[in-house]
């Protein structure tokens, strides 16, 4: 249909004559549609376009124009007449075709014979099932991860530096014992005014473990310079002498010699018998 082009042309206002021409063209179109055997829906669309066109033509003219040219009104009514005839025909065709389907009846039939309406489709691949139900044929569905449980952590206490490092060291068990050993040695030295025999001091005939501990503590004192272990010229045996504060300050490491004390069960027993020690000389509060 060439109507769209025509409409645009006539917008610039053309006379009644042109409008009449276009009404006639519309009428012709509609009479052709009557013999058309195309799809029902298409025909309805075409008719609708024709009616719309007629309506716009009518609006263009205005009332006065129509009074002056009654021929226009006549043609307009003929177009509408033809269109409505067509509409009746289409709707007859539609109702005649589709209304044979009664969905209520079908629904009722399905409700009463559910078995009848259960069948595989002719071109459907029979579903494959796995004997042991493994292998899901689809990729596993993504499960949402459980939300992370927020653990409320105990707030760490404010960090504090140790108040006094020196005091902390003294609290240590080992160093407490060391100072006790030192106290014992200095007291003994004050009472007897002579060096202590190293072996008599450290050996404990009732306990090898104590002996080892004693040796250990004494070696700390020697390292710190609080006591000195010297070989006695007469017996060739080691003796312990406490070292005073002033002597400690004057200490010269170059003059000192280092040695390693080792002891085992056998030597411990040999020493005890050699010095005939029957009770420990140094008894410390533990």
């Amino acid at each position, binding site marked *: 249909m060439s109507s769209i082009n025509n409409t645009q042309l006539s917008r610039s206002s053309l006379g009644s004559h042109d409008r009449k021409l276009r009404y006639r063209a519309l009428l012709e179109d509609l009479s052709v549609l009557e013999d058309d055997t195309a799809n029902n829906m298409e025909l309805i669309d075409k008719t609708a376009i024709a009616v719309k066109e007629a309506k716009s033509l009518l609006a263009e003219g205005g009332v006065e124009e129509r009074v002056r040219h009654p021929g226009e009104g006549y043609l307009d009514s003929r177009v509408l007449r033809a269109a409505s005839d067509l509409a009746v025909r289409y709707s007859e065709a539609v109702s005649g075709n589709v209304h*044979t389907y009664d969905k209520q009846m079908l*629904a009722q039939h399905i409700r009463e014979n*559910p078995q009848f309406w259960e*069948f595989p489709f002719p*071109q459907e691949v029979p579903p494959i099932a796995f004997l042991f139900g493994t292998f899901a044929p689809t990729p596993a569905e993504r499960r949402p991860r459980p939300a992370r449980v927020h653990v409320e952590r105990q707030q760490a206490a404010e960090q504090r530096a140790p108040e006094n490092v020196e005091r902390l060291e003294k609290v240590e068990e080992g160093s407490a014992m060391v100072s006790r050993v030192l106290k014992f040695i200095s007291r003994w030295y004050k009472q007897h005014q002579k060096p202590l025999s190293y072996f008599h001091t450290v050996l404990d005939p009732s306990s090898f473990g104590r002996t080892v501990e004693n040796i250990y503590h004494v070696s700390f004192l020697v390292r710190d310079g609080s006591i000195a272990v010297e070989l006695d010229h007469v017996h060739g045996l080691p003796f312990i002498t406490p070292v005073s504060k002033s002597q400690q300050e004057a200490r010269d490491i170059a003059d000192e010699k280092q040695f390693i004390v080792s002891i085992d069960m056998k030597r411990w027993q040999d020493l005890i018998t050699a010095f005939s020690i029957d009770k420990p000389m140094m008894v410390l509060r533990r």
Partner: protein
Amino acid sequence: MSQKRVKKPSNTAIDYSEIEDSVKECVRFIVCREGSKIPIKRSEIIKHLSTVCETPSNHTNAVIIEANKVLKRVYGFKLVQVKAKSGIQYIVVLNEECESLPSTVSDSQERRLLVATLLHIFMTAAPVKEEDMYKFLIEAGLLEDNDLASRKLLTTTFTRQMYLQYSKVGEGDLARYVFQWGERASEEVPKLFLLNKMAEAFEKTPDHWYEQYKEATEETRQNTNTS
């Protein structure tokens, strides 16, 4: 178009023995994967083949063509390419109509729901509005008033399987959701088959439903022409 492709040197150059393993793997993959009826993405096939057989992607076309031949010869299956937004997908249907035994694994209630839905759409001869569909199914005793799970079967499962097409029409206040036949339904269910079922149920001849009969015979005619 497809013939032109075969003549391309890149395809003819591939020796069958070279891709034989890939073809076998591809067939296996499709057979296993088909059970869910969710369309198989071409990209999934490519990924599977490249991880299992290290098939180069330029062989994919040849492999799928050969795999389709095997599926047809051995199983009577046919790969159908369907269009989707997310690239090329395939569904698997039978090459020829066949009276299969009723499946022992699928849910019978589900099947009735699907049959009734497809039937109603076909008989209405137009897209069916969502609400109208539910009304029909409730009347047919297949759906409860508040059965959201079954409604979801229609809108999600059947739609994903491409039995149904669930789409929005219109804008704003006039927007409606409608059901139509999906591509899988068109491939698997000949319309004449459904109409014969209708005829059997109501003791009429299929042409009692003139418009539907016209559509169904038209479809059958087209299929015999192409095959």
